[in-house]
């Protein structure tokens, strides 16, 4: 299946690499050409030589999304550093391009919950982090 990852930061590049390793077609879109280095880091061959695609462009520009292959995408991952960019581009992928599976990274727990209720598949690392801290404190208190 074809996975389009928008945002090649720590999260996006790691998800892109593991998806490629799992045998999927992977295309990455990021506005910073240098972000490509994250895709090459720690790999035996370059991102392109491994079969990956990389496009430089802004997430909410339709031309950039088209160049990155949004029309062929089965899975769309919005993983830029900005919640608002992610929430907007995810809805563009879902409502304009009809991508079947849209997953969006949201740091703000409150909006992650609300947009999940509206039908977006949100992933909130902050919520997970908070829960882990709470568990850790509970463990310490009990022992």
């Amino acid at each position, binding site marked *: 299946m074809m996975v389009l990852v928008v945002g090649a930061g720590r999260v996006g590049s790691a998800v892109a690499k593991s998806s490629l390793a799992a045998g999927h077609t992977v295309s990455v879109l990021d506005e910073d050409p240098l972000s490509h280095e994250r895709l090459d880091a720690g790999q035996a061959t370059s991102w392109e030589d491994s079969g990956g695609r990389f496009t430089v462009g802004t997430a*909410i*520009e*339709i031309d950039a999304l088209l160049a990155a292959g949004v029309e062929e995408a089965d899975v769309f991952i919005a993983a830029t550093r*900005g*919640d*608002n*960019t992610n*929430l*907007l581009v995810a*809805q*563009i992928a879902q*409502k*304009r391009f009809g991508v079947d599976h849209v997953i969006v990274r949201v740091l*703000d727990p*409150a*909006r992650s919950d*609300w947009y999940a209720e*509206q039908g977006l598949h949100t992933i909130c690392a902050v919520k997970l982090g908070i829960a882990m801290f709470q568990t850790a404190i509970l463990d310490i208190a009990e022992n």
Partner: protein
Amino acid sequence: MYVVVVGGGKVGLNLARELIRNGQEVTLVEGDRRAYLRIEQELEHAIQYGDGTELWVLERAGIQRADLVVAVTGDDEDNILICQVAKEKYLCERIIARCNNPRNLQHFKLLGIQPAVSATDLILNLIEHEVPGHGLVHLLDLPDEKLEIIEVEVTQGAPAAGLQVSDIDLPDGSLIISVLPRGKAGFVPKGDTVINPGDEVLVVLDPGLEPHITAQFAPNGRTG
């Protein structure tokens, strides 16, 4: 009327100022601490500090009871999402969004964020209005009502030139509401009013009929 304005830049601050002067209750939300402190000296309790895309900030500003939410930050993503939660989460009936980059207008439309005001487009429309020999100019778009009002200058040799209003082949869903002869006062035409080349006519129409209108009044004019 209670208005929440998000974004304390030039647009937001002046808007808040004018609304307050007109006796409206206003809360301005600004996320930059320096800008907030500066504006607070003038607006006092009418400004709150915080990221206006966060729900708790909007709730603290009283978005639940707002009659109108205006999102005028310099960031189109922010403006879209502020208006989206205002409308869909807090059920605010009226929203107005600022569109900074006209290329993003399609995203506002996609998510039903209307009206979206683009200063660039407004100025472009005004420029087209001033350029002589222009074709068709949008004066007013009411997407919810599915109506628009356009202005078109009648060109030499156009099918409608020299005809009475009642004889012009206009599509259903369109109506000439005003005729502005060059250098004279405009008026509401009757069926026997003759349309002359050089006249400007205002037409109210269903969206999508523009090509038919252009074909009748300005087949050789530029559309805009």
